[in-house]
């Protein structure tokens, strides 16, 4: 059980989650086409198989349910991983370049000096806004350990909250391609405001103004008795300070959905990063320009940097997803193997009960291969029905929220709220798995049925 070979899994990822629906359609089409072909060339009436399935309805239901459970589970598990991929895929802007310090694979480990920011935003290729300012967001990123309120006597609980300090919120929103939900506003130049004394949750009555990701607002809302997402005007505790929500980010489906945004100076000061940045995010004209700028910045002489297109940075953050995918594939395959044994059992039993039927069919002139087709079809029909039901149950997971971590490897990572996505590729994979189980589980029994001698089977 060594580490997965990433290149091979990249192929699986591509087929399952991204551009693979055509390939899957071809394979599934071939499978279904083969079934139709078997129907057409099979001389044994299908009604014979259907009636048999109905007569042994308890066995049919139990075998079908095994297919259903395996496929439903695989669909739900893949929907979760798909949610992680979609999240990281949506988080990066194709024309952006993220600059970290050399060696840092995650913003939380990156330390950049103030001095370099002016040089970097003047690099050729960085776009400018109408006012002539470079489209560059200078940010500080920290992961804060937040105490979660628990009833008295319960074990203390904490969660990690990502806090992004941005220098200019409008610029940051433009470069990240995000906007606020209606009713909100960005934090002020000072980034703080005075609270009514009763609203203050810390020693001072000065709160840091914060904009929350939509998902995090919901999660923090779970801490409150009224159990509703935090909204503009609400306050919460983080670190040693009280924070006031001034806006909610319209960020559903990206990692920013799980972040707190505030004024950089306030975040840096409170979390020991007063004189540093964690990252610069630069906007270029497109993906090609972003690649060029990233290469260009690798040659930056004054400080060692780790520049990369933002999309690539988030692709690397999907590493955890790959890890889960490996585990899911192993579990699904092992479960499917278990299911195959169950199907074989059913089909062998069906054949042993119908030995005389097979003898009669042979005497009536049906060829051996027609007997094989008949039993194989029976198994495939069972698999198709069970698989379809499994897909239908799995589809219920679509849109459900779940918490997870995205990271590029051990040590870093972002705690995120994601939405599970059941894609057509996943449904096709589920059906293929089910039909594969049916074909493998049905083939050997069908061959044994085919090999029965007519006279012997009638004795």
């Amino acid at each position: 059980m060594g580490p997965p070979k990433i290149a091979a899994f990249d192929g699986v990822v591509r087929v399952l989650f991204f551009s693979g629906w055509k390939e899957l359609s071809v394979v599934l089409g071939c499978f279904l086409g083969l079934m139709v072909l078997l129907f057409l060339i099979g001389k044994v009436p299908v009604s014979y198989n259907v009636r048999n399935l109905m007569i042994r309805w308890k066995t049919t239901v139990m075998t079908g349910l095994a297919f259903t459970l395996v496929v439903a589970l695989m669909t739900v598990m893949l929907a979760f991983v798909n949610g992680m991929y979609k999240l990281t895929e949506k988080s990066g802007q194709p024309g952006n370049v993220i600059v970290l310090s050399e060696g840092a694979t995650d913003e939380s480990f990156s330390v950049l000096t103030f001095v370099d920011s002016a040089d970097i935003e003047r690099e050729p290729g960085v776009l400018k806004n109408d006012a002539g300012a470079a489209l560059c967001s200078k940010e500080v990123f920290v992961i804060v350990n937040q105490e979660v309120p628990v009833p008295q006597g319960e074990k203390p609980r904490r969660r990690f909250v990502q806090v992004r300090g941005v220098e200019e919120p409008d610029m940051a929103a433009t470069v990240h391609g995000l906007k606020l939900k209606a009713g909100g506003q960005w934090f002020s130049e000072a980034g703080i405001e005075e609270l009514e004394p009763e609203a203050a949750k810390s020693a001072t009555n000065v709160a840091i103004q914060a904009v929350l990701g939509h998902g995090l607002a919901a999660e923090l809302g779970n801490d409150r008795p009224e159990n509703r997402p935090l909204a503009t005007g609400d306050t919460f505790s983080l670190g040693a300070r009280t924070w006031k929500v001034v806006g909610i980010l319209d960020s559903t489906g990206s990692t920013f959905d799980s972040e707190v945004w505030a004024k950089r100076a306030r975040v840096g000061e409170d979390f020991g990063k007063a004189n540093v940045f964690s990252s610069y995010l630069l906007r270029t004209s497109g993906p090609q320009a972003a690649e060029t700028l990233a290469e260009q910045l690798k040659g930056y002489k004054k400080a060692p940097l780790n520049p990369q297109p933002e999309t690539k940075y988030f692709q690397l953050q999907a590493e955890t997803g790959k890890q889960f995918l490996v585990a899911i594939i192993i579990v699904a395959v092992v479960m499917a193997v278990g299911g195959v044994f169950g199907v074989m059992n059913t089909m062998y039993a069906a054949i042993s009960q119908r030995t005389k039927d097979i003898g009669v069919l042979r005497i009536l002139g049906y060829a051996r291969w027609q007997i094989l087709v008949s039993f194989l079809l029976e198994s495939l029909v069972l698999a198709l029905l069970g698989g379809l039901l499994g897909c239908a149950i799995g589809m219920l997971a679509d849109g459900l929220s779940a918490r997870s971590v995205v990271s590029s490897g051990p040590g870093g990572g972002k705690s995120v709220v994601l939405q599970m996505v059941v894609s057509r590729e996943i449904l096709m994979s589920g059906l293929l798995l089910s039909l594969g189980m049916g074909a493998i589980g049905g083939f050997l029994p069908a061959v044994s049925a085919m090999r029965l001698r007519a006279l012997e089977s009638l004795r």
Partner: protein
Amino acid sequence: MLSLLDTFAKYGLIISKNVRRNLLRTMLTSLGTMVLVLVITLIWSVLHFLDQAMADRSSNFKAIITERWQIPSRMPLAYANTLREAAATGPDDVRPKDWCTWQFYGASIDPQKRDRDFSIIFFCMQPEKILTMTDELEDLRGARRDEVQRVVDKMQSQRNGVMIGVSVLKRLKKNVGDRMQLTSFSHKGIDLEVEIVGSPPPGTRHDTSCFMNADYFNAAFDDYKVRNKNQPHPMADKTLGLVWLRVDTKDEFQKMAAQIMNSPLYANPAVKCEAASSAVSTFLESLKDIFWAMRWLLAPAVLVTLSLVIANAISISVRERRMEIAVLKVLGFRPGHVLGLILGEAVLIGAASGLASAAAAYILVNKVFDGINFPIAFFSKFFIPIDAIGWGLAIGTLTALAGAVIPAWSARSVKVADVFSKVA
């Protein structure tokens, strides 16, 4: 007593003959059971380990002191001087029984390549604490402990000696005795030359752990200062990751935690003191939904599938043997006896397959594959606990019982007259 044993033997013989009657069916049911028990064993092994790591202990408490508000924790090394005494000042204050510090050092063995195949992360700590304060290693006994002690002694006498887990050595294509030039990515400019003097005992979670003498790591910062015109390294006052303290009881832990949290010595950055189990729980908080799904969705679904596989096989078997069951009844077997026979068959197949599967998983995963690689939070590898052999037996037995109840009940209810009237 003898007659009871005789009855058991008689029934056992009938059950075993019945199981052998259709070897193909028995084998398929057994194989199905084995693979599904394997899935459950793997899932429960991961969950069991994490549950243990998150469970509060009633004695021999280990506490972790880290930066209070943010991760990664980066405290000044000077904090260690007082934290190892739990900030105790008065005679009534709690002092820990043992302590150690952890500093983290990440580097690559190739200055041009930074990917996983060339990277290594060290716990920089006091070598003598490896055997007293490190989970799992502190429990070693006999020759395995002596071997680690030998490596520890070498790390003390040769400061650049490092201990590297066998999985990491394999990944880096290095052996004990090799020297390595490390280029740091966690502490730019702190590049070290080390010699591999040994490995933690193979077959533990520490197959992926690497230990370095903290003195050697800290001396590198002094060298840096000398080389850079008395300019300290930018991270020089942020190298302390965490401090481990050990106390005997929960009361002592609580008093010590208050002592540290209320101490004026740790203002900027503030620190927090928490039980090791709480720290692990915090790291796993974001993955709770996944663990919930593994525990309450995946595992039960596999159990149901397993029951279905067994139920199917038993119900087929019962349907085929209605005549035989009727004959048994004519011969004087009561419905309860028939029920027992059918349940016995299912239990025999389930229990034997479950036991075999869990035992095979234990041997294969732990001895052949050196654990399951599934990095979560602090943990990179999982092993199958010896308890799993009991789980396998229990899962096989109980799911077989659950799956066989309905078919066995239908066998119990076979009416002799009905069966023979159909034959007639």
